[in-house]
């Protein structure tokens, strides 16, 4: 059973109050979208959950273990994995070596043959088997994103946070990423997706968290969030905000980039 409990989380950077009493819970393998304008605190929240940043106050429990004061490697050991907004593959290591790192770090297996077999399965799943011996720096941006997702599969976590998994990805690779997300979720992993691509978020997630300058202003289903006037005002905007003429009939992607 997956249970993440975030209670009254606060984080300040100098005078910038980035997270203000943020509280929410995740129970079971939910698929959650975390949205909000730039500077809303999404990445800071991810960094706090991952252990990279310590909160000023508040608590985070994962499956009954308090994790807000632990180091990132300890949080990963307890079962929370993440990707980064800007892809951070190990560029001067081969694709296979990139996948070996989490498997060996968490001691999932001590037999390299077993780890290799698992890594090859992951690469085949991501349609990257032929690239196994290439250095990660030789991959395209989209392939590096896939590699990051592959590393998370090797980690086998309870909860995954994907920070902008769709940004700058070719539509063909997007299909693979969608497939990855759905399959991992079906296998019992809770997933939090941070993205500005609303069509992707709305098609994948059954629950949305909306942050606005440190405040969690909504925690509901996509339909209710879309209709929430507070969210519309803070983030989604109205049709006129996009077209200026009311010509568009649906919410566009990436409304707040920049």
């Amino acid at each position: 059973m997956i249970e993440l409990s975030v209670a009254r989380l606060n984080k300040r950077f100098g005078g910038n109050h980035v997270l203000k009493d943020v509280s929410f819970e995740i129970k079971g393998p939910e698929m959650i979208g975390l949205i909000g304008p730039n500077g809303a605190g999404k990445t800071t929240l991810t960094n706090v959950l991952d252990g990279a940043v310590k909160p000023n106050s508040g608590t985070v429990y994962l499956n009954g273990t308090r994790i807000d004061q632990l180091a990132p490697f300890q949080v990963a050991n307890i079962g929370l994995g993440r990707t980064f907004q800007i892809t951070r593959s190990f560029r001067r290591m081969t694709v296979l070596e990139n996948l070996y790192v989490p498997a060996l770090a968490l001691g999932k297996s001590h037999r390299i043959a077993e780890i290799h077999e698992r890594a090859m399965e992951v690469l085949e799943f991501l349609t990257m088997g032929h690239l196994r011996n290439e250095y990660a720096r030789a991959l395209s941006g989209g392939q590096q994103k896939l590699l990051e997702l592959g590393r998370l599969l090797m980690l086998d976590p309870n909860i995954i946070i994907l920070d902008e998994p769709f940004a700058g990805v070719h539509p063909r690779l997007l299909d693979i990423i969608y497939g990855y997300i759905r399959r991992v979720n079906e296998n019992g992993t809770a997933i939090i997706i941070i993205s500005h691509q609303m069509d992707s978020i709305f098609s994948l997630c059954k629950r949305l968290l909306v942050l606005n300058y440190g405040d969690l202003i909504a925690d509901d289903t996509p339909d209710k969030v879309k209709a929430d006037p507070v969210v519309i005002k803070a983030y989604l905007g109205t049709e006129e905000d996009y077209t200026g003429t009311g010509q568009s009939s649906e919410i566009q992607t990436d409304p707040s980039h920049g």
Partner: protein
Amino acid sequence: MGLAIVLFFMAFPFFYSAGNYDYVMHICIIGFFYAILASSWSMLAGYAGQFSFGHMAFMGLGAYTTALFCHYLFISPEPTGLCTEFAFGDYYLILKNPIGVTSTTLTQDCLSQAMDNWNGSVEVKPMPVWLGVMLGSLVGGIFGLLIGLLVLRLRAAYLALFTLGFSEILRATISAEIMITRGQAGIELPSLFENGITIFGHAFSKTDKIPPYFVMFFLLLGCLALMTWLSRSRFGLFVRALREDEDAAAALGVNTTRYKILVFVITSMMAATAGAVQAHYVTIVTPNNIMILQMSIVVAMAVIGGVENFVAAAIGAILIEFALEMLRTSFNIGGVEIDMTIWRLVFFGAVLMLTLRFARNGLLPPLIEYFTRGHVASETTAQRTVDDADTPSVRPVGGSE
């Protein structure tokens, strides 16, 4: 290839006969010494991404530890009554009092006075050299641990400056503590084999080059073997991940603190051991051994050889040591005397600059890559062709279990 190089150096002292035998063997020994330093620094900087400029300081710590140990501690069957001494069993551990650089004819140390009093009737034994070397290695490791802990949060230029500061502080302290370290005069040490050694029935004197040649060579082989094993283990994988992206490595479960400290301790111990052995080979150690110039030579050797490959760094160090010695010979061009004792360093600097500009990963790794990874590109292409033939469209969603 590697085996051929090892066999060549194993046999070299026995077939070399082109003259200047002792000098050439000496260059080999110093080459091996620099190879240990350059390769261990490449493990620290090239593999783990920890650009420390304190490597020669660890070397100096090893050298000074064994120097002080062998200079101040002795074992005597009789108490001197003059020195600080500790009884153990039938013997006494004598701690000689420091007298700095004062002439022994004016102010003798307590042990010399006791020896005069005994008039040759008591035999005082020096401490074993191997114990001094082991202590040097241990002290290097302890300081590696401390520095590793102190620099945990430092990266790139900050780490380089911090370790440079540590190195200079150590050098200044050794220079200043004249009473204990004898300052710039340096401390003399017993030779590696002070009483000579007999190997396979052949007696070698303490000045023979073959015993120290093989001691340094086997130390180099030991260090390279250890680093090869480490680089192929999870340690090697994790420190490279650490170099690539510390935050990402931590997020994937790597205890980055542990591996950062471990790599400092291991490489510091290697440098300290090399320093201790080299000190016993040249039989004197001075603060100049820790000068920043020495560190820059090690860095340059590793960079020219190949900083991300410790074997390349070691080979680079040996080749450069030989090249620098060969370039000592001055020559005439159209009646103009070129003083190579000065110009050889210009040549060295130029090679370094050209390497950094045109072969950032060193001169040897492209060759090594050609032999070890030359097949990868064609394999990737061939495999992609097979995959494309097998997969008409986007592969269906696979399983994570």
